């Protein structure tokens, strides 16, 4: 075998070892798709980036998806003990949430209580927010607070991060 072949084989083995070692740094438990009940029932879809007029209230539609089989209370649940879905933007982000228009909830009844109508979101929904951003690039971590259930059980209230790159021109 020539010196060149040895070197090529050595390089390949080296890269293989490196790749395996890098992979070994990612424990399976962190990347495994655990039961949805253990995680978030709501996923933020888009947009990742928006460009708005600096200093002016600008509309941004934020899209979310609820896991199949689950529902979350709308922004205006029919019972005062239920937790409404709400969007917020931290004041420290530099971007202000002027207001937000939430979609109307759809009526939903639990099979064992057909007389009580709930106002819920299912599937995909969008919140139409108006934001005010100063000139510049702002990585905003908005929050969506919600409480999810399926027809038999409820998960504790949860807040997910809604990351948006806001560019004020």
């Amino acid at each position: 075998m020539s010196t060149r072949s040895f070197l090529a084989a050595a390089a390949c083995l080296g890269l293989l070892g490196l790749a395996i070692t890098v992979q070994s740094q990612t424990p399976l438990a962190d990347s495994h798709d655990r039961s949805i009940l253990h995680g978030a029932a709501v996923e933020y879809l888009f947009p990742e980036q928006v460009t708005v007029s600096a200093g002016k209230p600008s509309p941004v539609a934020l899209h979310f998806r609820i896991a199949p089989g689950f529902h979350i209370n709308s922004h205006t649940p029919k019972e005062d003990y239920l937790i409404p879905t709400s969007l917020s933007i931290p004041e420290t982000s530099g971007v202000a949430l002027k207001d937000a228009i939430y979609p109307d909830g759809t009526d939903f009844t639990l099979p064992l209580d057909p007389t009580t109508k709930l106002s819920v979101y299912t599937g995909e929904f969008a919140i139409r927010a108006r934001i005010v951003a100063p000139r510049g690039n702002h990585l905003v971590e908005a929050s969506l607070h919600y409480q999810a259930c399926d027809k038999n059980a409820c998960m504790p209230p949860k807040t997910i991060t809604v990351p948006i790159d806001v560019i004020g021109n």
Partner: protein
Amino acid sequence: MKRNSIVLSIVLLLLAAFAWAGWANWEYRKQAAEKRLASAAKAELVADGAGAGDIPHFVSPLMSHPAPDFTLEDLSGKKVSLASYRGKAVLINFWATWCGPCKIETPWLVELRNQYASKGFEILGVSLDDLDTDDKKMLAQEKRDIAKFVAQEHMQYPVLIDGGSIDKPYGGLDALPTSYFVDRTGKVVATQLGLTSKDDIEGNIHKALGE
């Protein structure tokens, strides 16, 4: 030339050892992670298929084991411990004011408690509503909200608060309602997760009573 071959062979051997070590490390981590997942899955809901339209089976590692003891306060501030109910059949029912299915289940519990209390059966309703212990005003409001629910639902059995502080020994309590049925010796004899039926609950009460 011969010297070069020896050096390159040593380098190759070292790299092979490096690759083997990486692979072995990855395998070890994979097996450890799978063990952790298998262990955790026993204590949580496992959604069958793509959706979760039905609350699926609930397998608790506490089955046939002593129910973890706890001491919590009721709404009046009185401390209540599970151990003080030894000798009785106890249903530990985890619920929250924001839980619609819990609201459906509660009247059944009230009826069943009245029906079986004379046989030595008791319910401990443990609220998982969040409590802002750092904010006295907020805490008072949260207690009032729980008390309002308790009054509306005529929950005449002990209702304990701050259930979140005991969620770990009870499997994380990822969904409500969750119930543990404990027999007179303090052993968990049945568990229920999610809304089932009054008959199911009654059947498990019989188990707890040893009937």
